[in-house]
């Protein structure tokens, strides 16, 4: 039909003697034109042939350059809309670049997302074959690898079930199992690890390591710092289309933390409850030198602070600072009445600042501080309490637990 017209796909560059980078991105920019009207019509074009359509320009990727070495597990990080997916699509050849040059050595997998082209009305059997063909296998190869796919996905008994009856976890398993069948030397993966149950995720990670041991290059786009630090050899951070930083995953994760949680409410004190009574005027975190901080390294001790303005006379009130994760799990409750210590007497009109200092054993994440003041006793009779008044971002190493306590270990032969 149209097979007579053939265009050479790419003019091969001169072979480089030493190992060329798997992916080489040089000064790549990509701008999208966003027209003001959603769609133009032929009618408009005919009636107003000279009117130029108005549009905004979005500089999704701005002159980015970097190389990815053969066999590297490379992460691309950034917030939503930072241009990381656009960059990946440029590397994959789904979007053409405006300026610059992208070169790859080795076979590139043609997909960037799992389960692309899955049809919910077909069985897993059909979908696996179709998907494999889309990924570049021939029909025969696709059929030959079918058993391996189903075995890996652990879906043996469901192969003739239509995909619409699959759970989302099963779908991901099937998609992942199909995707790794591709004989590509460079894999591009956009946000995949957030799904599936824990056991399968672990299996996926193992599979990634296997691919890596085989010398495959993996480019991985994510905003999950945990998988970034765990898997990547190197990473880059994008912000609003610009390359912010490139280097060790640990440093990138830290920089990402900063741009993600950089502006924290501690700079603009949240006013306490608008009542005439005792109120918490301000809450913040500070380091041991007394400077207010929005983020803290695990190595340094941390202070949780808040200021209380009394509107009544109170004897031995209970001051407390509760630290919770963003999910609302309580990690620490620091109380002034521990070991029956008396806090003292306070007069109406007085203002005091309460500071709790603690070693920072927290795992990297964001934590919310809830300061409170309660009447003498159990601490249940609160006179002032502000939920999640301020927050802090902790960076450092993560073992996967919620606390990174100093440990000692001994191994003795018995």
């Amino acid at each position, binding site marked *: *039909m*149209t*097979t007579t*017209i*053939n*265009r050479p*796909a*790419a*003019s091969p*560059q001169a*072979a*480089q003697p*030493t*190992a*060329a980078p798997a992916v080489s991105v040089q000064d790549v920019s990509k701008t*999208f034109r966003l027209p003001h009207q959603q*769609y*133009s*019509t*032929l009618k408009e074009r005919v009636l107003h042939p000279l009117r130029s359509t108005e549009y905004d320009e979005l500089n999704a990727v701005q002159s980015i350059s970097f190389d990815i070495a*053969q*066999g590297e597990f490379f992460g691309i990080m950034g917030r939503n809309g930072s241009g990381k997916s656009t960059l990946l*699509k*440029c*590397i*994959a*050849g*789904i*979007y*053409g*670049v405006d300026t610059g040059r*992208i*070169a*790859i*050595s*080795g076979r*590139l997998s*043609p*997909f*960037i*997302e799992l389960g*692309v082209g899955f*049809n919910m*009305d*077909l069985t897993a059997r*059909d979908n696996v074959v*179709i998907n494999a*063909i*889309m990924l*570049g296998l*021939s029909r025969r190869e696709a059929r030959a*690898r079918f058993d*391996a796919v189903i075995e*890996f996905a652990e879906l043996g008994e469901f192969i003739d079930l239509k995909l619409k009856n699959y759970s989302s976890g099963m779908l991901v398993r099937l998609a992942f199992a199909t995707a*790794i069948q591709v004989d590509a*030397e460079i894999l591009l993966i956009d946000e995949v690890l957030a799904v599936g149950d824990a056991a399968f995720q672990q299996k996926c990670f193992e599979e990634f390591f*296997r691919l890596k*041991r*085989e*010398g495959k290059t993996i480019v991985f786009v994510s905003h999950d710092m945990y998988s970034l630090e765990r898997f990547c050899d190197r990473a880059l951070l994008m912000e609003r289309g610009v390359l912010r930083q490139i280097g060790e995953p640990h440093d990138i994760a830290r920089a990402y933390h900063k741009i993600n949680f950089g502006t924290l409410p501690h700079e603009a004190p949240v006013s306490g409850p608008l009542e005439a009574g005792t109120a918490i005027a301000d809450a913040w975190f500070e380091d041991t030198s007394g400077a207010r901080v929005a983020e803290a390294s695990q190595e340094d001790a941390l202070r949780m602070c808040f200021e209380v303005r009394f509107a009544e006379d109170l004897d031995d009130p209970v001051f407390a600072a509760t630290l919770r994760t963003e999910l609302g799990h309580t990690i620490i409750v620091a109380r002034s009445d521990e070991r029956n210590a008396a806090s003292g007497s306070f007069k109406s009109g007085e203002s005091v600042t309460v500071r709790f200092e603690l070693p920072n054993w927290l795992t990297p994440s964001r934590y919310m501080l809830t300061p409170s003041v309660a009447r003498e006793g159990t601490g249940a009779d609160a006179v002032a309490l502000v939920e999640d008044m301020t927050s802090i971002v902790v960076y450092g190493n993560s073992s996967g637990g919620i606390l990174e306590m100093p440990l000692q270990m001994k191994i003795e032969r018995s």
Partner: protein
Amino acid sequence: MSTARLPIPGRAPVSHRVHGPSALSGDLRRFWSLTFTLARTEFKLRFYGSVLGYLWTLVRPLLLFGVLWVFFTKIGKVNDQSAPSAKFYGVQLLGSIVLFTFFAEATTGAVKSMVDREHLLRKIHFPRLVIPSSIVLLAMFNLALNLIVVFIFAIASGVEPMWSWFELPLILGGIVLLSAGVAMLLAALFVWFRDISPIWEVVSQILFYASPVIISVQTVKEKVSSSVLHLYMLNPLAVIFQQFRHAMVTHATPSAGSLLGSWAALLEPLAIVVGIFVVGFAVFDRSASRIAENL
């Protein structure tokens, strides 16, 4: 899966440049297997999608045929049923309807094809031409099945085998080429101009009546001057349908060549078909690199 493929030492892979998406790129084997897979999947879905499945794709042209047949032979009498060219009018009518159904399916299906397959275009690197090609191929599957019905109907009506049946590949080649050209053009234009869809619905409706589907060319010839007839026969569909009727059904109806005066005059509609194909490809090829980001 279990075999570890270690990189072969000493063999440094050749670095090559990544180009953006295009209409045709990479190897043709992948182009074909993707086109075939997409068409086959779609066909399968239609086949198994409902209880009657394939019957539905057959019912539409047959119903249209039934209505037109009753109306134009029993009530309206547009054609002179006693004229020699009206021999096997039913087979002529059904054959033309089946061919037109193919053209309509291929082109109308192509209009929204790129937009409907946004999830593929935005996520996978593959030659963009695969999508309109698979739509045309799907229509070809249906055409093949419908032609079997036409064949059975022709034999049952008493049409006798003729040497000119060997012209069938040429006739089908012509309509496939034309449909593919229009399909590429519409698929690319719709991405930028969303009113192509209603416009094309009207245009294809006009083409149905502007081609010898219901009325034979003979009837047209009796009513209009030779220059108007010439204009009428510039429509490639008119040439294709008329030649189908002549070569496949009965020599009692004139061939497209004799209607135009000479076989050489057939070069004009042929040039139009090739022209549409070339323009269609050029437009598609030019827009292919930016289709994904404009969906």
